[in-house]
């Protein structure tokens, strides 16, 4: 008998620990975790803050209920363990108590329900949107295009990938869709996630209080390289955003004559332009080089590389274009200095050549993709991802030099 009693005491101790751990953890999480870029308790904009308030409420209620239940369990198990008392009365319950215990949670939940109801509709509001950005998911990267919007100086559409650039303090509406399977767009600091479903357009509001860079990750399983499909949202002050817009729309800068980069342009025209568009790039005969990803890629698109070095990630935001210390310089910048640092783009000194070269050498070895030319039967000979191109080392040198000019 005494062993039963002892194990009972141990039981409630550990159980109490487990529950307080959960409750404590959620409170603690909210308070002091500063270093996890996708922490859901660190809202950096209006929408995420709305969600966060609801989270505090429901986690708080859950925590209180958890504590009450813990006390109840502990008392029950200590008080009524077998101490040799007689077998108790075989009572079948007390309806009044039952009904009370049903009504109390119902009341608590109706309060939660009212706030939830309001929250859902508040977050679905789109009427006061200031800027619209189209977001398209594809295995395994995100494309952003900015429809023509004169108020923002966007006179011709801007297209980029990997990093969503948006003005801070602005109500931005993203219109999501997908070209192949379902993906999910999630920047925890700015809003909850919303699936990008092919054949449908879903809207999601993003709002960032201050300039900065916010991490995110595709959260709907989207096939082989789901784990390598990331995104980053970059918020710039309105002035910096205007600068960024101007730069994105600026004309193509041809590489200097007789430079390595010029040879790189030739390699690009020969190899890369089959799929990758660079706006303004001209073929040898002077006509515009228009990429035809629809003829080579199953989903019909490949990242547009115009102003490539103004972004600082590549390949689905999985690898950085910046070396580690240069990246830290941008990511850890104070919000007032952030814009200037981000707009510097990638310089030759800061370029993460190791990963970029590895990618150019053999992309599918770095990121699992359906890019084996012998196994393309299900997709009618089209690739899902960047194939191995058998580029020579000197071609790679040239390409890197050329890519550095796309700024």
């Amino acid at each position, binding site marked *: 008998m005494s062993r039963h009693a002892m194990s009972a005491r141990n039981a409630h101790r550990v159980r109490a620990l487990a529950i307080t751990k959960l409750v404590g953890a959620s409170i603690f999480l909210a308070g002091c975790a500063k270093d996890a870029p996708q922490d859901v308790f660190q809202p950096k904009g209006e929408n995420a803050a709305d969600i966060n308030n609801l989270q505090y409420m429901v986690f708080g209620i859950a925590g209180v209920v958890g504590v009450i239940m813990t006390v109840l369990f502990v008392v029950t198990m200590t008080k009524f363990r077998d101490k040799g008392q007689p077998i108790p009365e075989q009572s079948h319950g007390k309806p009044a108590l039952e009904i009370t215990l049903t009504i109390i949670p119902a009341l608590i939940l109706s309060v939660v329900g009212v706030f939830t109801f309001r929250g859902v509709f508040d977050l679905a509001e789109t009427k006061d949107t200031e800027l*619209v950005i189209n977001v398209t998911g594809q295995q395994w990267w995100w494309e952003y*295009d900015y429809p023509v919007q004169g108020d923002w100086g966007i006179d*011709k559409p801007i297209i980029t990938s990997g990093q969503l650039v948006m003005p801070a303090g602005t109500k931005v509406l993203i219109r999501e869709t997908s*070209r192949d399977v379902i993906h999910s767009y999630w920047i925890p600091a700015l809003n909850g996630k919303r699936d990008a479903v092919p054949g449908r357009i879903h809207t999601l509001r993003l709002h960032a209080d201050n300039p900065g860079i916010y991490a995110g990750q595709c959260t709907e399983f989207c096939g082989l390289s789901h784990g390598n499909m990331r995104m980053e949202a970059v918020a710039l002050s309105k002035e910096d955003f205007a600068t960024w817009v101007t730069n994105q729309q600026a004309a193509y800068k041809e590489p200097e004559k007789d430079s390595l980069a010029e040879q790189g342009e030739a390699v690009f025209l020969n190899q890369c332009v089959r799929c990758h568009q660079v706006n303004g790039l001209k073929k040898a005969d002077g006509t*515009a080089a228009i990429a035809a990803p629809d003829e080579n890629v199953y989903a019909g698109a490949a990242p547009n590389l115009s102003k490539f070095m103004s972004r600082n990630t590549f390949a689905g935001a999985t690898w950085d274009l910046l070396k580690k210390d240069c990246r830290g310089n941008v990511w850890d910048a104070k919000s007032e200095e952030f814009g200037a640092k981000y707009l510097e783009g990638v310089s030759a000194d800061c370029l993460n050549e190791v990963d970029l070269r590895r990618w150019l050498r053999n992309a599918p070895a770095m990121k699992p993709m359906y890019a084996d030319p012998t196994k393309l039967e299900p997709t009618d000979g089209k690739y899902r991802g960047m194939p191995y191109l058998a580029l020579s080392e000197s071609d790679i040198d040239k390409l890197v030099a050329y890519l550095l000019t796309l700024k």
Partner: protein
Amino acid sequence: MITTGSKYFYGVTALATIAMVLYMVLVNPNDIGAVALGSLASAAALLGGLTSFTRDSTAHTAKEAVAAAEQPAPAAVWPLIVAIGIVMLVFGIATNPIVFVLGIVALVAGGVEWLVQDYASRASSDSTFNSQLRGRLLHPLEFPVAAAVIVGIIAISFSRIMLNISKSAGAVVFIIVSSLILVVGFLVVLKPNMRGRAVGALCSVGAVALIGAGIVTGISGERAELVEAAEEDHYSHMACGAEADKYFDKHPNNAVSLKSATLATITVRDGKAVATLSGLDTPVETVTIPRSNNVQVLFRNMDTEEHRLVAELGEKTVADTGVKEKVEQCTQLTSEDQVNVLTLNIPKSSEAAGPYKFIVPGLEGQEIEVYVP
């Protein structure tokens, strides 16, 4: 235990199986030949199994033989059916393969039924038991086949009728028939002693009416508009120009998937074309279409005059002749308060060809620029 009679069938099974395997390995595993051999093997196995189960029908005692002889043979329709089957078979060879196939079906069905009935009728001297035996052997086969045939007849007859009469008449017919069925059902439930013959008679009348109407409407063919629509290629309403298709779906905006994937709505009101992006209220002057995506653009006409929306998507060079031709996509002519949809999928940037345009022919200066990044 393998009886003498079943050995033959088991032999056939084994040979057919070997032949099938060889055929699959040497010729083609998915060919009809393999199916035929496989079917032969299964059929022979079934027959072999049956002969084993029944011990070649030899498990009779002397007593039984006498008893069976005392029983008059029950009436059977099967010889007649077999005879009809043979006639149809021969007739079918000369005329129509369908008749030939029906002949085979009648022959096989009649043969199986005849064999089993004959076997069952001599199983014992008890005729009730004998008919139960027949049922036990054949009902598992008869019921599903009969059910499938009946369902098929009802479905085919009904579909012939519905394809023949006009849409509104079809609704009326549906209502009348379903109410009739309901009424009959009620009657049967309320008057349990009416069951039996009366119900049978009612069902027969219904069946005759249904099949008769089905045959009549089947012969007279589908209603005119369906025939026309098929000739006009109902679904290729993308081409611009003359109105090709008057049976175009007038309510595309009712489709959930269109509502959920609409990029923009272009509304014509008082002679002006106005574009709005879904999710936003304020009109926009340009529409940017994400590349390589199926994009739906709704066209809503609020004017009394008919209009259509045309997307001018630059030019393309025809590969054979080198001639450049315009790339256009149009909606149907849209009358007042109607909505039509344009589905676009533009894989390449409008970078080189300059902005594309949405125009509404007949409305001057109402162009909406279209960009593809």
